[in-house]
């Protein structure tokens, strides 16, 4: 009986196997036989690429491996992260400071890796906050957010954080034009045309990555959507897509889709630099902050800035030019040679490709079609290299490989289309699941694409995974693009809603001098306890500073008495370990914030205001050794005015005999 049952199972299994192996290609599921092998990374082996993926409305940056799609880390950037104490520890709170005060959440849309000579260099990843406009820089030696700069005069920092080919600048264009912060914004909304302006920010990036708002360019009010820098021959120029050139202020869905053509704005930023040097920029009074992380003090500082230099695009005639681009362009991508600029009109049935050389000669020969609110409009045909005909529906974003091919995502028809940049011929198309937004090819927006894989980040997931109620994981797909045809090899779920992503060869990142721990000798935190002999508790009025150490597996001190109601207690915990992958955690009952996760050699502070008299256990949250469960202690809280003396100890507070 049993045997027969097994036999029939075998027959069924064999049957389905035969069916699968003989199934003709392109017959539905779009996965070919060796997909598993292509995406498989054996246990203990490393992935070929790091993939830095925006976390969308989670506000964070996720790090995946390619081709396995394994999640390695979620780096907190613009949103608090109680798991890591980000935004909860005293040291990290200033990182989320803005001119609006502490902002615990944002919407991280795009990632962009730093480049040198147009090639990905593995130093930093930049990311934009879309809601409360900011740019962040993540240091790839520590995988930690090292700096965040706020942008004044801007609403919806979407067209960001794209960089120039030597990371001279990281740029940001406003999605929502608004009256600048330096004028009265208390005006009727329907005075958009008169009062609303676009501001494009050029943030200078220093040698150590430090960001400084160098200047802004003020433009007529439109919605800037995306951008990319020129490279090679077009280095010195930046291209921004813009929609709502109708200047609608309500029901944009209809009112911003009226015109046949909107624009790609070409900005000669080298020229703009000259104007700034020549004193042509107006100093405007604004308010924004810049937050920096210090690796030696393990502490962030936030400084407020009050001025910005603004160049007027309409007064200075030769820094900005408008190139007509069909139907509300979204993606604005420049090919590896720097010659071709691809505009993706999201409502258009074709993809226009502009030529940098033709644009230059059109500008030189004044082949203009009048102006747009004072900015010269270049004749469409004069700048056009050609159009990709019938590529699909809803083109959004384009990435490139090193072989002269472009890959464009089609949102409405849920597919990726591969086409030849020079001949503009469509070469291949593959379905995505579903409604693809951004694409990523490793190095795909640089001078030197690494190719091999293309990842599609989709907006709709539907039936791709086991259902989890109304809310589903976001879905991404990896395609092998090493051959003529694109081939789907893997689905993987992502956090938030991923927008843009970047990828780089693993060796470039893992051999960049990454830290394994922080040297305790270089710890300049003012409350560091370097060794248990420095562990102590100090009362300053109602503020109590606990200088605590952690090592496998105890805290020092672990018995504290003499804390009183009304006290503010600051636990400054120094992790004394000097080895890789040995963080200690810290938590105390009733804390109204989060845990701390302290890296080896680091000092981190948790503020705790006891709310009642009694006994409060504290413990290490990160399993650290066989005696991790023993890594704990007690804090005794007495009433205000109690005469219990302040005492602390480890190992000596024994019962009285």
């Amino acid at each position, binding site marked *: 009986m049993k045997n027969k049952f097994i036999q029939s199972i075998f027959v069924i299994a064999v049957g389905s196997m035969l069916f699968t192996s003989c199934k003709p290609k392109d017959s539905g599921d779009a996965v070919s*036989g060796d997909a598993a092998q292509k995406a*498989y990374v054996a246990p203990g082996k490393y992935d070929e690429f790091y993939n830095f993926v925006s976390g969308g409305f989670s506000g964070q940056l996720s790090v995946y491996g390619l081709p396995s799609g394994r999640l390695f880390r979620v780096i907190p950037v613009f949103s608090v992260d109680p798991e890591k104490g980000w935004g909860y520890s005293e040291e990290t709170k200033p990182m989320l400071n803005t001119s609006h005060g502490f902002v615990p959440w944002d919407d991280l849309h795009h990632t962009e890796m730093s480049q040198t000579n147009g090639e990905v260099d593995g130093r930093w990843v930049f990311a934009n906050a879309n809601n409360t406009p900011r740019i962040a820089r993540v240091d790839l030696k520590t995988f930690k957010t090292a700096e965040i700069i706020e942008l004044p005069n801007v609403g919806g920092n979407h067209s960001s954080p794209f960089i120039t080919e030597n990371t001279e600048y990281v740029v940001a264009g406003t999605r929502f034009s608004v009256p600048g912060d330096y004028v009265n914004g208390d005006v009727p909304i329907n005075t958009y045309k008169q009062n609303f302006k676009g501001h494009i920010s050029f943030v200078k990036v220093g040698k150590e990555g430090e960001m400084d708002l160098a200047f802004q360019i003020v433009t007529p009010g439109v919605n800037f959507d995306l951008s990319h820098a020129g490279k090679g021959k077009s280095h010195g120029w930046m291209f921004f897509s813009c929609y709502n050139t109708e200047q609608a202020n309500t029901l944009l869905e209809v009112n911003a889709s009226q015109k046949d053509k909107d624009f790609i704005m070409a900005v000669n930023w080298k020229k703009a630099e000259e104007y700034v040097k020549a004193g042509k920029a107006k100093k405007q009074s604004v308010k924004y902050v810049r937050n920096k992380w210090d690796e030696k003090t393990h502490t962030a500082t936030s400084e407020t800035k009050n001025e910005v230099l603004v160049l007027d695009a309409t007064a200075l005639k030769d820094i900005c030019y408008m190139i007509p681009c069909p139907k509300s362009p979204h993606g604005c991508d420049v090919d590896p040679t720097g010659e071709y600029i691809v505009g993706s009109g999201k409502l258009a049935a074709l993809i226009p490709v502009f030529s940098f050389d033709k644009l230059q000669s059109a500008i030189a020969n004044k082949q203009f079609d009048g102006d747009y609110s004072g900015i010269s409009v270049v004749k469409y045909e004069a700048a056009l290299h050609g159009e990709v005909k019938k590529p699909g529906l809803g083109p959004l974003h384009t990435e490139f490989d090193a072989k002269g091919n472009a890959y464009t995502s089609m949102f409405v028809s849920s597919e990726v289309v591969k086409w030849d940049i020079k001949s503009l011929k469509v070469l291949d198309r593959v379905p995505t699941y579903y409604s693809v937004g951004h694409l990523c090819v490793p190095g795909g927006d640089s001078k030197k694409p690494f190719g091999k894989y293309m990842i599609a980040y989709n907006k709709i997931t539907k039936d791709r995974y086991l259902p989890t109620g109304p809310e589903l994981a976001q879905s991404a797909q990896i395609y092998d693009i090493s051959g003529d045809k694109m081939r789907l090899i893997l689905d993987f779920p992502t956090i938030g809603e991923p927008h843009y992503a970047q990828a780089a060869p693993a060796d470039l990142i893992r051999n960049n001098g990454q830290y394994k721990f922080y040297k305790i000798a270089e710890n300049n935190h003012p409350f560091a306890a370097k060794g248990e002999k420095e562990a102590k508790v100090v009362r300053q009025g109602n503020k109590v500073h606990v200088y605590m150490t952690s090592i496998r597996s105890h805290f020092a001190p672990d018995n504290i008495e003499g804390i009183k109601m009304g006290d503010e207690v600051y636990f400054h915990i120094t992790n004394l370990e000097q080895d890789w992958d040995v963080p200690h955690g810290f938590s105390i009952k009733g804390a109204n914030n989060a845990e701390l996760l302290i890296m080896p050699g680091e000092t981190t502070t948790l503020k705790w205001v006891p709310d009642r008299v009694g006994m409060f256990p504290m413990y290490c949250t990160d399993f650290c050794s066989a005696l991790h469960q023993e890594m704990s202690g007690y804090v005794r809280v007495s009433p205000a005015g109690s005469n219990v003396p302040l005492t602390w100890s480890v190992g000596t507070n024994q019962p009285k005999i």
Partner: protein
Amino acid sequence: MKRLSSIFALTILLFVSCGKKESSGDDFSKPTTEAPSTEAPSSETSSAATDAEKYDPHRGEGKYDKVDLGAKLDQAMATEGEKVAGVKCTSCHKLTDEKLVGPGWKDVTTRRKPEWIMNFITNPDPMIDKDPAVQAQLEICLVRMPNQGLNDTEARNILEYMRKNDGVK
């Protein structure tokens, strides 16, 4: 059973004949460079037998073959060693023979050769895996001694501090 095996044979045949011709040269699972360095604990791939044969329990394993000690204590070195030990060692080790997290330091310099101590404090992980005495100790302490990232000078100063603790004048 016979029927089963013939189905199997058929399957393999069909599978092969239907399979796509792909170059198997592309190994996507290959690590991009060598496996993690020796710093990672217990990830050594070489056979344990060979290691055990090679392991010298008197010298330990690490970069130190022979450590020359002065006839007298170097007071300055011992003082420096005390400072480093305060940051990196004495959270877990007492100066007496009492065990805290790890064993007390008293008489360690008479129990162990100087090169063994130097190797152990700079290269603990492989020695915890191989040294029979350390393994026995681990059964008592249950916490692997962490690598505290000591450089040569720091390690040698700590050794001098241990000698001072053991009464060397």
